[in-house]
């Protein structure tokens, strides 16, 4: 009897724990949107600076139909994925090298950490001159910013592999190659993936930023176009869309990370 009462109660608690925070954050967004709507409608907020949320949402449809927002998204996505792929090609072996050769690790990990914290986006004029106003520049900027976290986290992940697991490998007489492929790599995957996730996000952010600055490519170019057209609702709609895409990226990557690290 008790169980029949307890079970629905337990389910309710679980559902609240899952949906409660999401509903609360959505309600805050709706509330802030409503306030902004009222401020713009009443003239307190200048509509030439801030777009009313309703207008911004209506502009989204126009961005898709007339300004090819869908295609722009695909262009940016393709660039971000290419840059991340190249960042992995550079960052994973670099991280392994810094782990494998301790002297190199001690010499250059600090450099990489400093570069990770630096606004590398400021290097874009250099590549603009060397490569030109094309995808080469945007992807190169994505690769540079993406490969640093990949290398740092790969090195860190390999350092964190439990010595006991390595002793298990030694006890089973594993060769160095077997130890690497059967123990070090799978043990390092969850932490190394954190670097790949950050690499992808850094690439995406930098690519969109450069697209905006050089008025070229995908999503960043759409924001830039709206800005130069002085289409304020369109510009906010494009920014809103970029935020949605970033959230989607983050959610998918977090799910993959959780799958890789179930503990």
């Amino acid at each position, binding site marked *: 009897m008790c169980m029949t009462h307890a079970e629905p109660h337990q389910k309710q608690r679980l559902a609240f724990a899952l949906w409660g925070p999401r509903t609360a954050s959505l309600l805050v967004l709706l509330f802030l949107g409503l306030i902004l709507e009222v401020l713009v409608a009443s003239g307190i907020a200048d509509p030439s600076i801030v777009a009313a949320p309703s207008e911004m949402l209506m502009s989204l449809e126009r961005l898709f139909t007339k300004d090819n927002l869908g295609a722009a998204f695909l262009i940016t996505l393709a660039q971000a994925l290419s840059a991340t792929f190249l960042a992995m090609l550079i960052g994973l072996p670099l991280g392994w090298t810094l782990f494998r050769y301790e002297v190199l690790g001690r010499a250059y990990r600090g450099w990489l950490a400093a570069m990770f914290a630096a606004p590398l986006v400021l290097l874009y004029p250099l590549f603009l001159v060397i490569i030109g106003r094309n995808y080469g520049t945007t992807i190169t900027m994505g690769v540079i910013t993406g490969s640093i976290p990949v290398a740092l986290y790969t090195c860190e992940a390999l350092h964190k592999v439990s010595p006991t697991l390595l*002793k298990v490998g*030694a006890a089973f*007489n594993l060769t160095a190659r077997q130890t690497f492929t*059967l123990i070090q790599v*799978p043990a390092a995957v969850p932490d190394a993936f954190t670097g790949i996730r950050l690499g992808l996000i850094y690439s995406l952010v930098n690519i969109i930023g450069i697209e905006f600055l050089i008025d070229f490519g995908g999503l960043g170019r759409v924001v830039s176009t709206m800005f130069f057209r002085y289409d304020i609702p369109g510009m906010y709609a494009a920014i809103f869309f970029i935020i949605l895409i970033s959230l989607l990226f983050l959610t998918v990557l977090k799910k993959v990370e959780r799958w890789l690290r179930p*503990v």
Partner: protein
Amino acid sequence: MTATLEVRNVSKTFESDNGDRIQALAPANLGVKQGEFLSIIGPSGCGKSTLFNIIGGMIPPDSGEVIVNGVSVSGPHKDIGMVFQEESTFPWRTVLDNVAFSLEVAGMEKKERLEKARHFVELVGLTGFEHHFPHQLSGGMRQRTAIARTLASEPRILLMDEPFGALDEQTRLLLGDKLLKICDALKQTTMLITHNITEAVQLSDRVAVMSYRPGTIMRTIDIELPRPRDSELISTDKFAGYVGRIWEDLRMEADRGMKAAGEA
């Protein structure tokens, strides 16, 4: 009967970061016969784990040798299977895949190795948990997985370093029962490193008592309790007698260890 495993005059000295030399093991001698269960017991810091690592080939001795079936060995050896005190299951592998690990490394066909792994999973009482990952298991179940993984490689000698050290007393006793059944079923030659007197008496045919640093074998005591055994034995007078005898030997050494730790 000749010893399956023999430790002859093995010694080890370590150098600390500040250059001090610490003799962990004075020349130690020990033999384990075929099918025998021998426990090594000693106070903390007596060099039990150093001896474990030397026998398992993880570190080389400064002098002496480890002999397996009459052959002097150096480095890890296929006839010695090791179970570690710390968490050692592979978190990315299921119980079955963990147990099949050594068979996979040996190049056994997938179907054959999984079949064989299932046998060892059953042996350690984890049937029904084959497809669970280590994080879904209790500490005791994870250690049983590690034991099954080592047993699957069919070592002549099973070498264990406080495998139940991180578990509570009740789980430790129950797992001791399980281990007794496994060793009886496989007639497995086993060497257990422990600091738990009850565990040593419950499981062993012989208990070797080590002195505090530099560690050496002070005495070996034959445990003449009937087999098959289980944890009910611990309430008997004979069991208590063995525990008392070992503690008598250990107390002074443990006291030395505590004093040394206090001075350090």
